[in-house]
């Protein structure tokens, strides 16, 4: 026994020695090269809210140009990148996060795709690489309008009699489409895939992408919702409760939209509504105290107390908007044969839409076919699980290499959950030999194939520090800079700033009733604290000009820059020509007017005037704070009992925190407090302004802002890059805007001169009108300024006027324009320096390599293993 112990001890000692020796062995190149951050791959654009119908582009010419420079097939070029969350499932019918969507960037294709304009793909009137064009990818050619013939042959699609174009389009597919194993992809695969994503019993998360909205195909909604009930408000029905009952309706059919009206789910947890006869109580999470008043509500309660004939909201309009009737318009067992996608010929698809579509939107959104799946594999991955409610379907499709299939440039060749995902060339992708997938390099004038990258390696790397070290060691292709990196790398020749859509506003609370309630609370000390002053416009204006936005960006969040408008820098109003809203004269004039810039000071140079805007004016700030102080005294918001000329109360705004206190929040609060108090120095608010952090609220922060329980946040909307007009709807919609409870845009009239005539409507109607609704002006004339309903110039004018109005309403002030900064590895370069919201800098499609993998390893070693940027 003792000998055994000795041998055991000796063995352990040997193990330790071996371990140490192993650890100190000769350096080797890591087998798996590890990687960086967010690749600069252009993302799929969001679906804009507005239907648009641009013209169809001309049929493309066969690409011609210089001789194509082929890449040396013996060399490997690996794009090494990293993510902080690796995809865990990439079933195109069920994925829910952008993390999972990374897979699609490399392995899927589309009928039509965007490429930069150049000699091969010219765009009239634009410099090479200054815009983009659409080219067929999986499609053999551009779509053909077959509205007339489909209308005649397929009455089940209910194409309007008056329609002559735009509703039905046929697309011829390429003959050489293949899955990554070489099996052909046929037109029937597209149809079968759409059927599966919409199949009602599968409850696929992505069904909603295809069954409703502007770009949905006909009857998709009927198929995916077969047998489901639908709530229709009295407002939408054009009736009232009383009329409905008088016409034979019964209470048993009437329901309350509980989610819309009270922000609670319906009693069955499945629907937003509940019948007015149903007294099942539902917990209202907005009432923190479980025993508090209205912590539980039922549909019956809401009806009896608010929306019904004897309720407090009877006749308010809410009773029409949030009460209605349940009906069953979706026929159970509805056949997919009636859905508007079918095989119409030899490898030809025909799409039939609910709305007329054309051009850019047709080929990008309308013909999005990301639902394409390998149906035999898909069916084998379906599984049913018994639940307390019955059975529910799930699928393992797209969760491993065995259950994945590619039809794009790359295919997955290695996957380990939460560790690594590796892609290699999919030799069966048509683009490798298609001359349309070539470009002329703006630097050397030679013609190259796209996708020089042969492999893509995505590693899970959680810590930014690790990413940075790996990047500097040449193991990652990009590194997204952290705040502390900007001083060192901002001027690097490898630094790239990338603007983002969102403008962050500093919000103000104007919900007077709630503010007064908060001040009346027992634990509120009105002798030292004030919440009401923030409602004064003079105070808000003072705050607006107290903040040096560029300095704030530099100190608080260096990736961002100062924000001065409601619409950010990246919004494109005309996707056909890649024209930016902020570049228009209308948008520039809106800012010049709002910031009171005298054009004469800039020789009427609009660009120079806009460039001069800083939004920072401490002199005016002081004047406005003094004015606000006097106003606050007069209104009794604050007092000055000791007559020292300074408010007894500290004007306090609670910053609604959505998470724990981070460096960003700490710096933001510090900067804002310092700026506001510095500007208020010498006024009655000197040292008496305080923005204080709330407890972490999670996603509830926005509800707290909307309900007036919290006062401020740096918040914004990102909207859709291609639809700046839709933003106007958001700002003026009480249901969406942060200030919806105390600011009603329909109460403000605005006159705009269009085509030489003055038109007056309230601001909300202008926004609706701009987004396609028919509205009546003050003279009783109806207008619709939606896409295609008026000139682009008029639409830009309206949007600029609404933006200016919202700026002057001071519900918030724009502070920061979102953005990010990153370093690019010396191994590669972008052929386009300028960032394009639709194309990025070309992403992996256009990425060029200075070194192949082997040469890069040698180069890094020659630099001592650490690179200088």
């Amino acid at each position, binding site marked *: 026994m003792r000998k055994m112990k000795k041998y055991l001890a000796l063995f352990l000692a040997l193990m330790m020695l071996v371990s140490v020796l192993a*650890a100190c062995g000769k350096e080797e190149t890591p087998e798996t090269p590890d990687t960086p951050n967010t690749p600069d791959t252009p993302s799929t654009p969001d679906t804009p809210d507005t239907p648009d119908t641009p013209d169809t582009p001309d049929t493309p010419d066969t690409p011609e140009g210089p001789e194509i420079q082929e890449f040396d097939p013996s060399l490997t070029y690996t794009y090494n990148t990293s993510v902080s969350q690796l995809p865990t499932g990439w*079933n195109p019918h069920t994925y829910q996060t952008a993390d999972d969507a990374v897979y699609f960037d490399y392995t899927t294709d589309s009928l039509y795709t965007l490429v930069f304009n150049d000699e091969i793909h010219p765009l009239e009137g634009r410099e090479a690489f200054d815009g983009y064009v659409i080219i067929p990818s999986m499609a053999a050619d551009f779509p053909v309008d077959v509205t007339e013939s489909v209308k005649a042959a397929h009455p089940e699609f209910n194409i309007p009699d008056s329609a002559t174009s735009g509703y039905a389009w046929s697309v011829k597919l390429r003959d050489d489409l293949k899955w990554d194993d070489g099996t052909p992809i046929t037109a029937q695969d597209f149809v079968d895939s759409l059927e599966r994503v919409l199949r009602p019993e599968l*409850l696929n998360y992505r069904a*909603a992408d295809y069954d409703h909205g502007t770009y949905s195909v006909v009857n998709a909604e009927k198929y995916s919702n077969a047998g489901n009930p639908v709530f229709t408000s009295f407002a939408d029905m054009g009736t009232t409760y009383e009329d409905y009952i008088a016409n034979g309706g019964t209470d048993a059919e009437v329901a309350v939209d509980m989610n819309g009206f009270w922000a609670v789910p319906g009693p069955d947890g499945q629907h937003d509504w509940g019948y007015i006869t149903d007294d099942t109580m539902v917990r209202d999470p907005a009432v923190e105290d479980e025993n508090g008043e209205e912590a539980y509500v039922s549909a019956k309660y809401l009806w009896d107390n608010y929306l019904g004939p004897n309720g407090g909201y009877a006749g308010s309009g809410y009773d029409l908007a949030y009460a209605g009737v349940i009906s069953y318009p979706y026929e159970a067992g509805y056949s997919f044969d009636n859905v508007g996608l079918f095989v119409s010929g030899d490898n030809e698809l025909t799409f039939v839409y609910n709305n007329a579509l054309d051009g850019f939107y047709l080929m990008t959104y309308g013909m999005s076919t990301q639902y394409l799946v390998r149906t035999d594999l898909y069916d084998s991955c379906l*599984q049913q699980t018994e639940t307390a*409610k019955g059975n529910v379907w799930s699928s393992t499709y797209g969760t491993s290499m065995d259950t994945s299939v590619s039809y794009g440039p790359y295919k997955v060749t290695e996957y380990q959950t939460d560790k*690594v995902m590796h892609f290699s060339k999919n030799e069966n992708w048509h683009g490798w030999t298609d001359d349309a997938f070539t470009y002329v390099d703006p630097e050397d004038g030679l013609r190259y194939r796209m996708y020089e990258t042969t492999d893509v390696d995505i590693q899970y*790397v959680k810590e930014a520090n*690790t990413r940075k070290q790996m990047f500097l060691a040449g193991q990652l292709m990009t590194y997204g800079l952290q705040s502390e990196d900007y001083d060192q790398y901002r001027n690097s020749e490898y630094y790239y700033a990338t603007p983002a859509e969102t403008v962050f506003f500093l919000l103000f609370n104007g919900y007077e009733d709630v503010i007064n309630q908060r001040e009346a609370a027992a634990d509120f000390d009105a002798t030292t604290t004030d919440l009401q002053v923030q409602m004064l416009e003079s105070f808000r204006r003072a705050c607006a000009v107290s903040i040096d936005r560029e300095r704030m960006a530099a100190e608080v969040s260096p990736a961002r820059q100062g924000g001065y408008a409601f619409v950010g820098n990246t919004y494109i109003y005309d996707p056909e020509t890649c024209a930016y809203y902020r570049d228009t004269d209308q948008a520039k004039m809106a800012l010049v007017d709002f910031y009171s810039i005298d054009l004469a000071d800039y020789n009427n140079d609009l660009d120079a005037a806009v460039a001069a805007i800083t939004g920072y004016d401490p002199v005016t700030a002081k004047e406005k704070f003094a004015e606000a102080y006097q106003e606050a005294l007069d209104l009794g918001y604050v007092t000055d009992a000791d007559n020292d000329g300074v408010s007894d109360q500290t004007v306090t705004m609670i910053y609604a925190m959505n998470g724990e206190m981070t460096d960003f929040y700490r710096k933001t609060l510090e900067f804002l407090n310092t700026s506001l108090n510095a500007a208020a120095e010498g006024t009655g608010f000197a040292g008496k302004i305080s923005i204080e952090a709330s407890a972490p609220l999670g*996603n509830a922060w926005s509800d707290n802002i909307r309900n007036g329980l919290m006062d401020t946040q740096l918040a914004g909307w990102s909207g859709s890059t291609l639809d700046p007009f839709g933003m106007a709807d958001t700002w003026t919609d009480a249901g969406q805007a942060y200030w919806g409870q105390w600011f009603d845009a329909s109460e403000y009239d605005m006159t705009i001169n269009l085509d030489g005539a003055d038109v007056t409507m309230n601001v909300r109607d202008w926004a609706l009108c701009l987004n396609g609704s028919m509205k009546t002006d003050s003279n009783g004339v109806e207008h619709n300024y939606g896409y295609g309903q008026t000139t682009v110039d008029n639409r830009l004018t309206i949007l600029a006027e609404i933006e200016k109005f919202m700026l002057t309403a001071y519900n918030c002030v724009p502070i920061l324009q979102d953005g990010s900064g990153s370093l690019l590895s010396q191994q590669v370069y972008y052929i386009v320096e300028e960032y394009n919201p639709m194309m990025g800098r070309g992403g992996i499609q256009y990425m060029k390599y200075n070194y192949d993998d082997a040469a890069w390893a040698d180069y890094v070693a020659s630099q001592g293993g650490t690179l200088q940027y």
Partner: protein
Amino acid sequence: MFKYALQRIFYMFCVFMIITLMCFILIRMLPLPVLPPEDPHTKVVEMRREALGYNEPYLVQFWLFLKNIVTDWNWGLSEKLYFGQDVWKIFIGKLPATMIVNLYSILWTIPVGIGLGVLAALKKNTWIDYFISTATMVVISVPSFVYAFLIQYLLCYKLQWFPFLMKGGTDYFSWAMFKSIVPPILSLSFGVIAGFTRTTRAELTEVLTSEFMLLARTKGLTKAQATVRHALRNCFVVIVPGIFGEFIGILGGSLIIEGIFAIPGVGGLTLNAINGLDYNIFMLSTCFYTAIGLAAGLVVDISYGFIDPRIRMGSKK
């Protein structure tokens, strides 16, 4: 002893069921994320929640949960983190990476820790003891993730001796894999070594001054013989539970260390499941670690009797 063990197993089962039920209900009491009403996907999510029985009484759901496990060893599918995938396969698939790192770690930390403790005790009040004791206090006061960052910076980035991350794949006993996990092993080890050193030194110092040690020396044993045969064995009553704890800890991953070195293990799985409200993953990991913890307690208790014959289990005297 056998009766005692049976009794403990019965109690263990009762505790296990109570904890499981409590966790089952508590995780379901957490409010589900509020869905944006204007989002068209909301409808599908709500319908799926309903189909999954989330709105049924907790006990009905619990009964089905138990039934599926007992009759089919079916722990359910992930509804959030690994959508549609069998949670048992996910868990088991991630366990080896955690185990291998922890196993290598304890294989050298235990002997080194005990060895340093013995050395410090034997050299009590000399510079060696002072050095070891001071270093132990410093090391034990610093969290392991600090070592992780330091090790990654020094050994991986500056000296380039090791890769930054654990190697991908499942060749856990390959040379390349071993090399790639040296940094996390070192990161996990310092604190454990310090812990064993401190415990061993404290126990051994006390035992070495006992009268029976004097007797052992007077009957002719060398100092080494007396220390190994008598002193150390007495110390082990305290040390062995720690060793058991370490071995059990093999199955539990470190959220932070696994994150830093990209170890695809189970560390953080429970926390992520709570944050993501992935009920089935949470319940599986909870049940697994509850069972392991309870079993470990039993094993440790029984082990006392083997280490020290003076300790008798289940005795009513």
